[in-house]
């Protein structure tokens, strides 16, 4: 079942002369974990914001094409209406805190109050989501007084509480330390296990390679490729497009193994290890 359908999407920000997105078309199935990579200004963030309706309803500007999420055409629905189906978590955890609530608990309930959810259901959803994201012990803390990783989990919790079918995360770990990063990826994986479709923009390609079903590779507002991670990360033009190659693939490439297994390179550390062991016996690490 297709959760996301994009046809011929092009978009230009106000005051800009160049297209931020050019003729984008793709589909995403329910439950998939899709990664988006590309260098800065390649259109990744604009694409994310087009999925939730921020493009065009927030920025205005010039828009063409169709974006359909969970059966809703984004042009015909307000951002608030789309928020019940698709959520977006941004890069900076600090700026996602509303500032109007004094505790983590109330902060999570903010979106539910906006949607007019009944009080008993509000409490149930808030409690569940706090436990799911492992921030229940912080529920009475002030949202500004928690760590970066905790703040980002709070941001994710606030969105998950709205029960969207698709969640987009735009570079959610770029401002976090390694511990915070791991916390976020762990949380996102749990969401995936609940059947939520995940779309994530990331520069940490090793992590993305391990979790994603497919990767969208973008450059200059266009989609260059949309395929499994093992194919995307084996491309020779990654550096030119400003995308890092995962280190184990780099290692395999330096051993010349990429020529031996074109299109079938492993994308996790474990699988890489197994392959190397298979090739060289077990006295190599």
């Amino acid at each position, binding site marked *: 079942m297709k959760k996301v359908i994009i046809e011929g999407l*092009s*978009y*230009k*920000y*106000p*005051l*800009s002369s160049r297209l931020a997105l050019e003729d984008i078309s793709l589909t995403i199935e329910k439950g998939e974990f899709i990664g988006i990579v590309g260098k800065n200004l390649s259109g990744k963030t604009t694409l994310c914001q087009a999925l939730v309706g921020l493009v*065009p*309803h*927030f*920025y*205005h*500007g*010039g*828009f*063409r094409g169709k974006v359909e999420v969970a059966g809703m055409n984004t042009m015909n629905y307000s951002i608030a209406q789309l928020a019940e189906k698709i959520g977006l978590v941004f890069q900076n955890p600090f700026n996602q805190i509303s*500032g109007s609530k004094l505790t983590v608990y109330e902060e999570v309930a903010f979106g539910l109050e906006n949607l007019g959810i009944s009080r008993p259901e509000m409490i149930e959803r808030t409690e569940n989501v706090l436990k799911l994201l492992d921030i229940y012990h912080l529920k009475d803390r002030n949202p500004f007084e928690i760590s970066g990783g905790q703040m980002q989990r709070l941001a994710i919790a606030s969105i998950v509480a709205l029960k969207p079918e698709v969640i987009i995360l735009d570079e959610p770990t770029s401002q976090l330390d390694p511990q915070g990063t791991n916390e976020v990826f762990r949380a996102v994986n749990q969401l995936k296990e609940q059947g939520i479709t995940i779309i994530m923009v990331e520069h940490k390609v090793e992590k993305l390679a391990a979790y994603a079903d497919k990767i969208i590779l973008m450059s200059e507002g266009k989609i260059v490729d949309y395929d499994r991670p093992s194919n995307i990360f084996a491309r020779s033009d990654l550096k030119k497009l400003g995308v890092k190659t995962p280190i184990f693939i780099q290692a395999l490439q330096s051993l010349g193994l990429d020529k031996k297994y074109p299109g079938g390179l492993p994308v996790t550390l474990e699988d890489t290890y197994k392959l190397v062991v298979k090739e060289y016996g077990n006295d190599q690490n």
Partner: protein
Amino acid sequence: MERKNVWSLNFSTISLALIPVSVGINYVGKLFAATLKLPLWLDSIGTILAAMLAGPWIGAISGLINNVIYGITMDAVSAIYGITSAAIGITVGWLAYKGWLKNWWRTVGLGIIVALVSTIVSTPINIKFWGGQTGNIWGDALFATLMAKKASLFLASFLDELLVDLPDKIAVVLIAYIIHQTLPNRLTVLFSNNKTETL
């Protein structure tokens, strides 16, 4: 790209998000002025920037909320002058739209107009609540002198307030103008209302 009516009451989310930020800028502007020991208040830069960016109503609300918050948290006296701050917001928002920020001379002119508006609105408040004084040493000294010479209450109070407001408001408008000029267009355009077009 057309610009919606600047008097529209249909506020975008970002204009509303601007309001607490402008109150914060007012606060910080005042803090920096005190840190650098400058002889002016400089506590309305945020209100004026909000008016320049998002129009008269947002400017007015920023000014009003600014004073109400100061009143609740620091100095109860400030709250009543929310009316003055609101008037300043409306004046700047309206005249900015009318092109009063085109060059230096007009900007100074705007500063003078803002000072006059501020004085005219504050004077009746000053008279009703404190018999005409402003709480500023120089202004009240002038007030006392004029009252000793049997000048009219309104005139004495008006000049008391004007003495305090003129240098401060001209400085504030100029500073806000300069800072506004340094902001990139792609940022300032977000605060004005425009429409989606088809490509």
